[in-house]
């Protein structure tokens, strides 16, 4: 890549401010703050789900429809994408742009793979009689997991944009921050899925 030279000064650690120890880069701090708001967003959705998940009316219950082996595989796929994005950022910090691009490709592919699992799951549930309109449980389930899926889809879109930018224009210090910020978002989306998997699927199967 022509940008290999520019990449000579890519920071391994982002600077923090002396007074508060917060990231000095506005975009990194801004993304952390955004994620705090996202925590409140998903907490409200998950809280709503927990309040409504027994309201199944005449429709199926969670224990009846959840397919744990399938969702476990989907979970493993999504969680491995956190590993690949870490390896991508590490490669970027080693100034190995080529490896970074490969890891980002893989991350995006794992994200798409997860979304396919989710699409398949939604399709199956629909045929088993669980839709948005069936019951409060159905509404809460599809809205919560649907919003998580939208977050994954937006993350894939974001990764692809940065990937194409780096393929076309190489990488520089500004773009490394953009990739780093995206990786924080991606980890968050994965962490939320851990909570959803535990509280919706695992707890739903036993209770």
């Amino acid at each position, binding site marked *: 890549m022509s940008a290999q030279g520019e990449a000579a000064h890519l920071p391994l650690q982002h600077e923090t401010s002396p007074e508060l120890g917060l990231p000095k880069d506005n975009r990194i*701090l*801004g993304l952390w703050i955004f994620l705090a*708001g996202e925590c409140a967003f998903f907490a409200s959705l998950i809280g709503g789900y927990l*309040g*409504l998940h027994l309201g199944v*009316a005449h429709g199926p219950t969670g224990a009846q429809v959840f397919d744990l082996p399938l969702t476990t595989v989907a979970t493993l796929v999504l969680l491995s994408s956190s590993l690949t994005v870490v390896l991508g950022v590490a490669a970027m910090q080693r100034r190995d742009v080529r490896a970074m691009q490969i890891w980002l490709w893989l991350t995006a592919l794992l994200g798409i793979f997860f979304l396919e699992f989710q699409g398949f799951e939604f399709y199956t549930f629909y045929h088993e009689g669980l839709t948005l*309109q069936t019951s*409060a449980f159905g509404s809460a389930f599809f809205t919560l997991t649907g919003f998580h899926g939208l977050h994954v889809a937006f993350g894939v879109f974001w990764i692809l944009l940065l990937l194409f*930018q780096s393929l076309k224009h190489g990488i520089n210090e500004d773009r490394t921050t953009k990739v780093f910020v995206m990786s924080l978002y991606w980890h968050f989306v994965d962490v939320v899925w851990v909570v959803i998997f535990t509280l919706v699927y695992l707890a739903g199967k036993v209770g």
Partner: protein
Amino acid sequence: MAAITERVAIAHAEGRTYHGIWAWLATVDHKKIGIMYIYAALFFMAFGGAEALLVRIQLWQPNNHFVSAETFNQLFTMHGVTMIFLVAMPILIGYINAIVPLQIGARDVAFPRMNALSLWLFVLGGLFLYSSWFMGGAPDAGWFNYVPLSGAHYSPGAGVDFYDIGLQITGIGTLMTAINFLVTILNMRAPGMRLLRMPMFTWSALITMLLILFAFPPITVNLILQMMDRLFHANFFNIPLGGNALLWQNLFWIFGHPEVYIVILPAFGIISEIIPAFSRKPLFGYESMALALSVIAFLSFMVWTHHMFADGLGAVVNSIFAITSMLIAVPTGIKIFNWLATLWGGQIRFTTANLYALSFIPLFVIGGISGVMLAMAPADLQYNDSYFVVAHFHYVLFGGTLMGALAGLYYWFPRIWGRLLDERLGRLNFWLVFIGFNVTFFPMHLLGLEGMPRRISTYAAGNGWTTPNQIATVGAFILLIGMLILLYNLIVTFRRKPDLVQDPWDARSLEWSIPSPTPEYNFAQLPLIEDRDAYWVAKRQGRTALEPAEPPGPIHMPSPSLTPFFLALTIVVAGYAALLHVDWLALLAMLAAFWQVGAQLVHEDPGYHVHPEAPAGGAAE
């Protein structure tokens, strides 16, 4: 509005220049964005005020038929929604935009384009809400829009859809403002401006933004859930299919109670600037003021169920929330006593700004005391849903927030618009508003105690409600005259030549340390801050300016951009399409919005450089 065009600097972009109205649509300058927030808030205030007047005319006499019951419901709902979301928050966010970067010694906010997006989402989202009047009727289920009243069964029209979608649009903008100003205040303070040297208004902005960050996601989720119910026939609030009506109330008030602090804390901040400036004394108990703000913010998330005392959640729940609610009186009391102690022994000047600030204290105390009365759960069952509640929240939101906002308008007018508002008209404006306010809202305490329920479109003769209602309506017209005097004051002031006085009040904080009009780069050299009230200290030491923290040099500025405006417009188009069930257009507009967001994620703005020695406007790089 010749004044607006006067201040339009020619805006440079990557090889592009915007003029006239386009310069305003494309601006990313926090000062102009602040001005537009304030104008838009005043614009919506006229509508919210007109709705209130129509309500007061309808309640002038028993069995009145001035407006129908249906219209009455729309009027009080839109009055509440307007005053909270389109007036109180935006006017305060306007001051925060215009003043906070100056107070901390910053050249701009952290994310200037996102700041413009916040503005346009508010403006266009507000217009979207108001278009409901012409598209089948405005929201009519009250500003807290309880289910099942607001559900598809009892509210089949589009009004509640306008509420759900309109508030999502403005809400996203508000959330972005929170992220923007948290980063700005935490990361962009001038050298030496430690947290405990920041002016109290900046402190209040910091804490308010934290409240927005955690309060707006729950309401966004609530609006999404109701939108799913109403547009896609989901069952979140449909009880026969397992839904739960209390979910709405919980999520609404988890937002709703912090929201009242979102609109009062910046007013606290304004008062904490004005009282020291016009007492010529430092703010008494500075650290305790900052601590009180933080404690209020923390407690504000612990009290939401006091809005639900009448739900029958049980004695234990009610007692816990009664106690946490009353606890808030402690930090608030600290603030009141600190303001009084600041005044004690000061050389007080009774300018209009200070009159408004001083009136804030007794009015807010009245509202606070009726608040403690409402916080007593057993007694609340008597006050609940009566005019006593209406009296209470008008004393805190009008007597508190709006008095604070008007104090801020008179105080910061010379900084924001380069000219002083007329003081004689100002005093007339103040006294009419002060008297009109009390004549309107004090009788409502008595009406409530006599049992008049809120939100009734008319009442029977002979239960003693007529006279207090008539007094309140007279008061509302005194208020109208007072606000028209303010409008007249604005018009004559804008017709005058700008005075361009840098520091008319001999004030204390950094925004007064720079020339008037404020240069587009704010500070030619960032100041070095060595004290709290550093500008005041410098003036007392006979210096006219603060020590610079950096050598003079070219200043990098962000390019203006039309993207925020068009992105907001795209989102509003998606809103209309979803509401009118044109699903393909809604999907297309959402995809277009995501595409524009994506373009911003990879955008690289070279910006341009301004040379402070050169005439304002600068040269493109």
